[in-house]
């Protein structure tokens, strides 16, 4: 049983906890221990974590407490614990990417994101569950079993970062890191009633992020409030010379934007192609209501058309598998990870094929073969080449829309959380979950999902997506902060406070 104080600690925002730690009202150790206790209490039902590093997290917390005692200035999130998606390399801590092929692998180095979290004094509670190598929209493609949505344990928490979103929504952690290749931060945020941000491509270093599709992958914050996302975003963001795609310009001040939380005078574009057919009625309803609130708050709302978004899903499922089939060639059982069948006089090729057959799950195999197909001579121009041209046209649609509007909005996902098992062997139905989030990855700009209510028909959370131009991440926080504030005023609390107790 947890004491009332401990229960209280896990329900606070990261910003509140950081302030309490800095003021000495509570120690970083107490905060970290409260979350470790919560994980021990509920994670057998949620299964958000693949590995819990209690010792490491408490050591970081103790170091923060010692710094404070020594009168040192603490960073803005010092001592506030975090859940890390299991796709980021963390030295000496198991990193599986949700795959048997990496079971037991302990990286010999830290990802840049992890390095920055450590430097900020953020205790890392453990590694969170995910669809294998981030391929999926439900976390059912994890080799280690699905994560359960805290709103209804029979339902999916989204994917691929379902573990990070579920950890946040079940109060196991106030902060988490996700990665978003086609919606893997935003769609889980939408279906768990939490906040998720995909930063501008190049805004957060990919060094040490195990690559799925290098031109699309981006790490970002998962939190319960917009301000917490901004604080975490500013810890992990910024230029990294070890990532050649990292943007050298200074990143916008997202924390100031979250504090300003003002949409007065902004032009907000409603993307015609990201509503209508295929979108659940309750999702559309809550989305429209949220847009009305933005109008009330002083924004001007106009409808815009992005005609090539209709082709984004198709182009994505050619570009992503192509990059992934190449990136995942490194899992060959030679230098790290699983090796199967290395006996008798089997050749290296046979051992590789046996290893990859045993180590990869069905979705990974499907996408590797799709990519191999799309890149084969004879098909290259019709598939991969054409998809790259469509990618250009999607970027141009965004350019035209952002010439008229400061930000664009849409529902984050077409439906609320579906039942575990419902779509697991129907790849096309699964892919449709990302229909509204994929265009942003294709163009490289930034987007946020934030909760805007529960769908009347099923009582499950609905997310609204805000999209902004590249390197205008601050606009996400202006809009997100304003909308979150207005909804909190209306409800008297954050939506996440309505989540059933586990």
């Amino acid at each position: 049983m947890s004491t009332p104080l401990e229960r209280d600690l896990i329900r606070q925002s990261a910003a509140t906890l950081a302030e309490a730690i800095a003021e000495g009202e509570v120690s970083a150790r107490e905060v970290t221990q409260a979350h470790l206790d919560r994980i021990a209490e509920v994670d057998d039902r949620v299964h958000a974590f693949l590995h819990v590093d209690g010792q490491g997290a408490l050591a970081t917390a103790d170091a923060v407490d010692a710094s404070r005692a020594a009168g040192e200035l603490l960073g803005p999130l010092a001592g506030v614990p975090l859940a890390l998606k299991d796709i980021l390399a963390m030295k000496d801590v198991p990193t599986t990417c949700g795959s048997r092929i990496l079971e037991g692998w302990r990286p010999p180095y830290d990802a840049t994101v992890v390095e920055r979290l450590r430097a900020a004094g953020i205790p890392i509670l453990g590694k969170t569950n995910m669809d294998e190598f981030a391929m999926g929209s439900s976390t059912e493609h994890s080799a280690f079993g699905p994560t359960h949505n805290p709103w209804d344990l029979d339902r999916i928490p989204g994917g691929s970062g379902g573990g990070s979103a579920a950890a946040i929504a079940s109060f196991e952690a106030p902060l988490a890191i996700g990665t978003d290749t086609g919606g893997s931060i935003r769609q889980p945020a939408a279906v768990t009633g939490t906040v998720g941000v995909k930063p501008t491509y190049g805004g957060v270093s990919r060094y040490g992020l195990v690559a799925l599709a290098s031109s699309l992958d981006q790490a970002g914050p998962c939190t319960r409030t917009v301000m917490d996302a901004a604080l975490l975003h500013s810890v992990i963001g910024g230029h990294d010379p070890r990532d050649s795609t990292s943007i050298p310009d200074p990143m916008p001040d997202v924390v100031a934007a979250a504090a300003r939380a003002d949409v007065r005078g902004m032009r907000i574009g409603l993307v015609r192609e990201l509503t209508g057919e295929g979108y659940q009625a309750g999702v559309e309803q809550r989305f429209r209501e949220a847009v009305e609130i933005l109008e009330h708050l002083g924004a001007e709302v106009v409808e815009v058309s992005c005609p090539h978004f209709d082709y984004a899903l198709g182009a994505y499922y050619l570009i992503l598998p192509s990059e992934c089939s190449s990136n995942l060639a490194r899992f060959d059982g030679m230098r790290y990870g699983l090796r199967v069948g290395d006996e008798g006089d089997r050749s290296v090729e046979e051992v590789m094929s046996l290893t990859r057959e045993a180590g990869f799950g069905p979705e990974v195999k499907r996408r590797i073969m799709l990519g191999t197909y799309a890149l084969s001579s004879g098909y290259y121009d019709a598939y991969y080449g054409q998809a790259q041209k469509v990618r250009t046209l999607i970027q141009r649609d965004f350019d035209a829309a952002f010439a008229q509007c400061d930000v664009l909005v849409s529902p984050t996902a077409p439906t609320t959380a579906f039942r575990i098992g419902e779509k697991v062997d129907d790849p096309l139905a699964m892919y449709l979950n990302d229909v509204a989030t994929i265009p942003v990855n294709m163009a490289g700009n930034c987007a946020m999902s934030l909760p805007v209510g529960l769908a009347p028909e099923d009582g499950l959370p609905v997310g609204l997506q805000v999209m902004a131009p590249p390197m205008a991440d601050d606009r996400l926080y202006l809009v997100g902060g304003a909308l979150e504030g207005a909804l909190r005023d209306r409800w008297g609390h954050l939506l996440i406070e309505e989540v059933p107790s586990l």
Partner: protein
Amino acid sequence: MSAITRAEVAHLARLARLDLAEDELDHYAEQLDVILTSVARVSEVAADDIPPTSHPVPLVNVTRPDEARPSLARADALAAAPAVEDERFRVPRILEEQE
């Protein structure tokens, strides 16, 4: 007409170094056909004169000073290897027997 045959899937699996079982070949042939038929919609877009985009944020000639820095120690590099011999990665034979 199906976009992809079972024989083609077997060929792709060989290229991708996946030792698929017989029943997997049937299953994936069916699923890949559905997916490829769907994604082939990209061909409806008239894009002959459109330049391709391989990367969302074009940065070119990204360099850094050519300075020696510490790299991974040999023991660290070998620590996770499935098999090690004489402080090297041990791998299965790489040549055919008759060679």
